[in-house]
């Protein structure tokens, strides 16, 4: 095979920079694997190593510092047949650490070559995540206060299936890159090199420093790890084949005469876990079956199963603008927690308004008409009370009738859930006589 190096853009690094050796080894590896340029994408980020894509006649994607793995992930999933090689320096490794960990865990078939030269070359030789504490950098003492990152050990802990550490001047570099590229899954190579432009200027014996670091890492146990786990893209596509298509949006047609042709504002005051927003939705669906418009605005804290849950429902023969409710026509009071949030609304409720209240809760004094509902007698569990109150509402002639409620329940639920709901509605309605 012929070289994939771009003859019009030869590698352009400081004399003696390890990056150049990696460029040539990568090219050798491509040739050895018999890949043509359009079968490869080189994805790079920022720094001297970010120049890599320009030296090759391959597809190229050069993006932001530390984010190369993110582009590569989208690209590889969209083009499973493409060989995607990601090049980052130790700078990109540090700033994009979360992406490195996630790539190890994900095991998508990408190859990450970390061109680790222990400092930020392009910006003047500051310390990086991998700088040995003994080294001198443009960051002064700052680099000496932090422990250097053993990325191979970290990748191992994160579940990477191919981890390799090698010196950039190792004769086997091209061959070892080839192993990483052919591994079916995520492969990570820590390629340790020298930055004569910056690192060697401040550190008389850079090779010794790096060898010492390497040895320290080795002593912890061999970081090289070659294992197998299902490749993410393959696993993903298998799951997709089993995925059930989602139901299309189901239109609601009005088949009966419109329900009460007035605009009504209904406030549900309850707590998380009471299925307040489901009940509010059922009221909307019932109204829509009666040919009305409906809106449902919810208010709840970020907690789940704790805190208030309030829904504001407006039903109207006309399209609805403002979705908030200042003076409700009907209030369903389901918990003191919910009531507490709108106690002023209850206090100032007009005598013409109606409050349906779960009998065991206390609500502020009000001029509104009150209907107390004994949910215990109705055998309505905590999460069924909102529906019980809705069922009672159908007996008042004020808004949706029992038939519309039934059709709403049939739209929303099926099987056991539907039967349970219908039975509860029946119990509630007959208790109202």
């Amino acid at each position: 095979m012929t070289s994939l190096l771009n003859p019009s853009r030869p590698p352009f690094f400081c004399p003696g920079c390890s990056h150049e050796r990696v460029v040539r080894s990568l090219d050798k590896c491509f040739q050895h694997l018999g890949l043509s340029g359009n079968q490869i994408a080189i994805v790079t980020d920022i720094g001297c190593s970010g120049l890599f894509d320009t030296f090759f006649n391959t597809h190229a994607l050069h993006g932001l510092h530390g984010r190369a793995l993110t582009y590569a992930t989208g690209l590889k999933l969209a083009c499973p047949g493409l060989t995607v090689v990601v090049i980052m320096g130790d700078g990109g490794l540090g700033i994009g650490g979360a992406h490195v960990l996630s790539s190890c865990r994900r095991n998508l078939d990408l190859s990450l070559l970390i061109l680790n030269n222990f400092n930020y070359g392009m910006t003047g030789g500051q310390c990086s995540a991998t700088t040995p504490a003994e080294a001198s950098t443009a960051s002064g003492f700052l680099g000496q206060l932090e422990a250097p990152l053993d990325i191979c050990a970290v990748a191992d802990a994160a579940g990477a299936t191919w981890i390799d550490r090698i010196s950039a001047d190792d004769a086997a570099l091209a061959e070892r890159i080839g192993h990483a590229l052919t591994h079916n899954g995520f492969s990570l190579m820590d390629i340790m090199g020298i930055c004569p432009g910056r690192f060697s200027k401040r550190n008389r014996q850079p090779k010794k420093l790096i060898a010492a670091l390497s040895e320290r890492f080795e002593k912890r146990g061999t970081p090289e790890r070659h294992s197998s786990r299902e490749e993410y893209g393959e696993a993903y596509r298998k799951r997709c084949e089993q995925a059930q298509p989602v139901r299309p949006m189901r239109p609601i047609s009005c088949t009966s005469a419109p329900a009460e042709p007035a605009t009504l504002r209904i406030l549900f005051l309850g707590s998380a876990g009471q299925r307040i927003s489901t009940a509010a939705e059922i009221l909307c669906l019932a109204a829509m079956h009666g040919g009305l418009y409906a809106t449902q605005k919810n208010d709840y804290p970020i907690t789940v199963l704790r805190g208030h849950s309030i829904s504001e429902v407006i039903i109207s023969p006309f399209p609805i603008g403002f979705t908030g409710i200042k003076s409700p026509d009907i209030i369903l009071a389901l918990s003191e927690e919910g009531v507490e949030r709108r106690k002023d609304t209850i206090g100032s409720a007009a005598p013409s308004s109606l409050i349906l209240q779960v009998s065991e809760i206390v609500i502020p004094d009000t001029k509104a008409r009150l209907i107390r509902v004994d949910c215990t007698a109705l055998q309505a569990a905590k999460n069924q009370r909102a529906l019980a109150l809705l069922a009672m509402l159908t007996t008042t002639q004020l808004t949706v009738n029992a038939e519309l409620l039934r059709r709403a329940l049939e739209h929303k639920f099926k099987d056991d859930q539907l039967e349970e709901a219908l039975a509860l509605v029946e119990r509630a309605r007959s208790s109202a006589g």
Partner: protein
Amino acid sequence: MATPRFFIDGNEAVARAAAKSGCRFFAGYPITPATTIYQHMLSLLPPSGGICLQGEDEIASLGFCLGASMAGLKAMTATSGPGISLFSEQISFAIAGEIPLVIVDVQRLGPSTGSATRGADSDIQFLRWGNSGGLPVIVLAPVNGADCYNLTCHAFNLAETFRCPVFIASNKEIGLTGEAIAEDALADIEPLNRAGYDTHQSEAPYQPFAPSADSMVPPFLPIGGEVLVRQTSSSHGPDGFITTSPETLEQGIGRMRAKLISHRNELALYRIDADPEAEILVIVYGVTARAAEECVRGLREQSQRLSLLVVHTLYPIPEKLLREEIAKVSRVIVIEMNLGQYVREIERFSGETTVEFFGKMNGELISPDEILRVIKP
């Protein structure tokens, strides 16, 4: 008999519209109040051969989308204020690399992490200027669920046509508000695809950032195809290689600006409820338009003469529309669910007419009564 209606919220409308528009890739990070868009996309895409991912953070989510879009897939992500903040560097890349993308911001109350379950139009200026370089973007603001659907369809088409990120500036009070939407309110907008490069048209190598003869938008080829494609976030020439030539840079950056700005008037999507005798023009966008419509209706019943302009295309600014409508009246009133973001743009085109402003940021909707008090103090 009324046309059938759907009961859905704005977030579902966005997701359904994305699927209809040919979106094949979604990546997101859970964040209230945008999470349900991701949940819907996770139900919609995988069974139909699309891809839906959860990123390790917002930066990753948008990065995944950029990679997928460069492979030729229509891509979307959704977030809220704190996520938009993290998106910033990748948004800049989408602009610089001319990568088609739809970004939904279901806005919540800021500043900062603010209130996850409270609405506000917190990010309007951030969407416009939250990129390094300050190049224009497209921002569309829905008022209701039907708009969420229709504007998402438009957003995909605009992203493909202009090769740029397009934002949907939604709001918790639209995204999570369920409502009856008439079936015929959902427009049947034909999905468009980005213009492809004709590989037979020339012997010369493909230049990924060279505009075609009849458009300022470079024809697209995907990474991974036959022909080699270069994409880069760095300053580049038409060939996609880094350059520092002032002439090349000026041309390229000028073209990226002009490809949108030169279409600013025809991109204007809006609704105007005009009274030819109006002295007052109320300008609104987003969920606040719902209260404004109600208020205007009430005032007209009291014989007040006024017009209402609901702007959907916030950016590029519909300059001509604003100038023309403002020129017809003596009072302009802008109402926003923030402390004054888009009003700055309107002031630039208001000439001698003073612009009055009312805004609120306390997690509550602006009510028709509040707007009434501004119009009739």
